[in-house]
């Protein structure tokens, strides 16, 4: 199984993933990244005032995927 690394950046605070995790294929890793970015954003936006979460996924050494969520709040 290929190993994927999920570097997470929340409000410009970057945390590099040196452990990595195994997933069956790219689809499984993509699904994990989407669920994770949504779950971190869901908590961070509501509770600690975060506005942006970005996950960069590496497959082995190479960049594979970037997933991001940004919050916009506008008074109307």
């Amino acid at each position: 199984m290929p190993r994927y690394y999920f570097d997470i950046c929340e409000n410009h605070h970057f945390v590099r993933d040196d452990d990595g995790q195994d997933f069956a294929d790219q689809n499984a890793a993509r699904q994990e990244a989407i669920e994770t970015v949504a779950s971190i954003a869901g908590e961070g936006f509501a509770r600690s005032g975060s506005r942006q979460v970005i996950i960069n996924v590496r497959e082995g050494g190479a960049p594979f995927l970037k997933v991001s969520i940004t919050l916009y709040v506008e008074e109307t």
Partner: protein
Amino acid sequence: VSSDAVRAALVRRLRISSGITDEDVGEILSLPITVRQYPAERTVISDGERATECCLIAEGFCVRSKTIADGRRQILSIHIPGEIPDLMSLFLHVMDHDLSTLTPCTLGFINHETLRRLHQRNPNVAEIFWRDTLIDAAMFREWIVNVGQRPAPARLAHVMVELRERLKVVGRIAANSFDMPLTQEQIGEALGITAVHVNRVIRQLREDGILEFHRGRVTVLDEAKFQELADFDNRYLHQSPST
């Protein structure tokens, strides 16, 4: 592990939580128990299966869980030596969730008929086991509150503090560390978040100097911060006979 050691773990726990008398201890110690060894991550009894015996954990860790149609699993509870995670199967005959091992386990099995006769003969023991299943229910209430309302770092810390409180009763903690033999994926299944989110939370807790989690062992770095984050009140564990 002998079958005596299997009974001893249960008695030790009941002495603390239920104020069990020596006579009742004698009754429990004389129960016939069949000891079996299980490897890690093996199902003990499955959802939908008819139970004919109860399972007492002598060594190792188990979980109860339920899997939904698309294959996702929710871990409902973590179980430690001295506990009977399927005690309710004595009255609820068909399992409504799975019981499986996390680590290699020594399990003692007590036949339902034997337990039922003990209940009828000795109402004290029946009350003690009834109380035990009520505490089990109290723990589920707390689990729902935790998973439904706390943010991920506090959610993880709460599960850890609870596990430590319970391990303390059976004498299985070191000065500032204890076993929690779950993978990050299994922690995700317990907390309702992804394994990658778990990994991030664990890194954050280490960065904040609160705790380290490595290869299934928790080391507390800052007890005060750990307690504060977990928002833990041990009242629901009812660990003394008067509560």
